[in-house]
């Protein structure tokens, strides 16, 4: 049934995915195909990721780098517990790559339930990278992929494979190839930067030499809308990531702020104060006002769309203090969501629509919370560790990026949606804030 030395076609992959249902891995949630890692007491799956095998003799240092990148991704997911390579009994340059040439009992003895194996060849600047993920207990391959391209792009390939592993095990692909836009503050200016989800490869997007805030990715990942004072007054611009240009989107009198791209449409929700006080408007991709979404005597700001683009979470202080509300765009009905605490802001709707994350003040500090869109099930995600603001979700709904001052100046951190596993991802000089997580469709620049 297993083909020798072959790359497994999709249908066999699906077949193996179904085989996950009949695993008998003891005391593990792997008995279910859909592993819910947002449950706080989920037990991580031990996985062995030895150095990759180089099939040609150049670029041997990538052998460890690639394995490390894959290890970090799987560790980040909260699903796995990568084993210490010091405990591996075989030389990774001699160990096999496929089901037929791997000795699974040896790997079982290291305590692994899963094994990731990669092999690569480099010629000029071209790399061929094959990776496979095995269930050690049943000696079967779960997923295998082959990637080719410029050797410089190996991290993208490894991240994609990590996405595939998660897809195979949980039914939902990972988001390891996605990126996070944020504000980098140093000196007197704040510019928009983009970084890989794990903090590597920071790229500067704007060079306006002004104060720039609130980056917001377009659904196709090609543009970032943001607010800037570069034309003296607070206006909204869009940066085109493919050609490096930026253009004015909204420059109405007063405040133009907090752009939020509407899922599935070429429209944005924005805060404008042109009619007297800050309200939320729907504008087209050329900045023309389509309709006023939220009108009120107080301040209305910080819109965040539901994944189907039909509802909007936002902040209003019409009750006397800033609180999170939900607007049904079709009917125009508004409903207040938060009732405890005197300061609840920065809502962010999860990609599956099942949670709204927000920032609430208590004990003089800002912390992150989750609540269901109907208002129930409120949970506190951070506690007693500096100020934690501006949550944003990864597109697979597993992770939340946010800014935190728990180690001094504000930096971008990522944690699991369950609230655990928080790790710092930016270490640039100055301060980092206002993160926005990219969609899955990406353009590199």
């Amino acid at each position: 049934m297993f083909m020798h030395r072959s790359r497994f076609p999709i249908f066999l992959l699906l077949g193996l995915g179904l085989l996950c249902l009949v695993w008998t891995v003891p005391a593990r949630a792997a008995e279910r195909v859909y592993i819910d890692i947002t449950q706080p007491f989920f037990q991580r799956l031990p996985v062995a990721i030895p150095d990759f095998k180089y099939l040609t003799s150049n670029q041997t240092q990538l052998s460890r780098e690639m394995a490390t990148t894959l290890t970090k991704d799987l560790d980040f997911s909260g699903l796995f517990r990568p084993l210490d390579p010091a405990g591996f009994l075989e030389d990774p340059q001699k160990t096999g790559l496929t089901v037929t040439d791997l000795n699974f009992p040896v790997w079982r003895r290291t305590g692994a339930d899963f094994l990731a194996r990669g092999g690569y060849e480099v010629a000029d600047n071209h790399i061929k990278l094959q990776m496979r993920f095995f269930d050690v207990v049943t000696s079967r391959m779960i997923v295998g992929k082959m990637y080719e391209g410029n050797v410089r792009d190996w991290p993208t390939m490894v991240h994609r494979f990590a996405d595939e592993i998660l897809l195979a095990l949980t039914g939902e692909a990972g988001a390891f190839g996605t990126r996070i836009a944020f504000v980098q503050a140093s000196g007197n200016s704040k510019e928009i930067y983009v970084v890989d989800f794990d903090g590597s490869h920071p790229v500067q997007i704007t060079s306006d030499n002004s104060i720039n805030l609130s980056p917001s990715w377009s659904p196709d990942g090609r543009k970032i809308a943001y607010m800037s004072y570069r034309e003296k007054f607070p206006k909204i611009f869009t940066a085109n990531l493919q050609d490096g240009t930026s253009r004015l989107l909204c420059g109405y009198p007063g405040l133009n702020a907090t752009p939020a791209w509407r899922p599935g449409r070429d429209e944005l929700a924005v805060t404008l104060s042109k009619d007297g006080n800050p309200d939320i408007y729907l504008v087209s991709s050329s900045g023309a006002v389509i309709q006023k979404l939220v009108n009120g005597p107080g301040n209305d700001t910080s819109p965040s769309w539901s994944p189907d683009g039909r509802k909007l979470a936002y902040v209003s202080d019409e009750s006397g203090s800033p609180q999170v509300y939900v607007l049904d765009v079709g009917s125009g009905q508004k409903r207040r969501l938060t009732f405890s605490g005197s300061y609840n802001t920065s809502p962010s709707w999860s990609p599956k629509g099942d949670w709204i994350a927000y920032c609430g003040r208590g004990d003089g500090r800002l912390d992150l919370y989750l609540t269901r869109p109907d208002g129930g099930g409120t949970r506190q995600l951070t506690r007693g560790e500096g100020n934690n603001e501006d949550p944003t979700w990864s597109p697979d709904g597993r992770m939340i990026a946010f800014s935190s001052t728990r180690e001094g100046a504000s930096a971008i951190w990522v944690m699991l949606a369950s609230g655990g596993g928080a790790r710092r991802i930016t270490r640039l000089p100055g301060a980092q804030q206002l993160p926005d997580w990219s969609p899955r469709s990406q353009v590199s620049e």
Partner: protein
Amino acid sequence: MRRDLFNGTRFFLVVLLIFAVNACAKKTIPTKQEFPTESTIGTTEPTSTGAGGIGGINDGQWRELGLNSAAERQEFMKRAQTFENDDVYFAYDAYVLSDEARSVLNKKVEFLKRYPKAKVTIEGHSDQRGTNEYNLALGERRATSAYHYLLNSGVQAAQLSMISYGEERPLATGQDEASWAKNRRDHFVLNL
């Protein structure tokens, strides 16, 4: 035997295209402006440090102000200094005007009526606590409160413009109540 081959060539052609294009950030404005843009007057850079625009006033500007004698001009400079130095302060998370705020604003009304050609930008600020986005709205409302008060006291609309800086341009950078209180303010900058 089929290769489950991820075709990298097409994918990474995009990367090549990117490097081929000379990527410098150009500011391009769409040809069809759908909205009016705020006109800026005079000052080359927004400032909230109290330095204001009264540094050097040239002849043209004096004529615009309608001040011709040396005595008048000296008087103006003195009053303008005070005008810009007195900020209006706000309570935490609030944008209503206190009695103290009103008395400061009354003096500004006097100045603006005495010099009906003088133009001012009202800058609304907040302290650094709280989220950046909500603080932008708060700063906007603080500026608006002062704006309406001045307007209702008889100042010409043409003399007034507003801008919110939220928490982005704090005057005091300490992490204590005294610093925060200094930042919750409207600051008035003469445009010359």
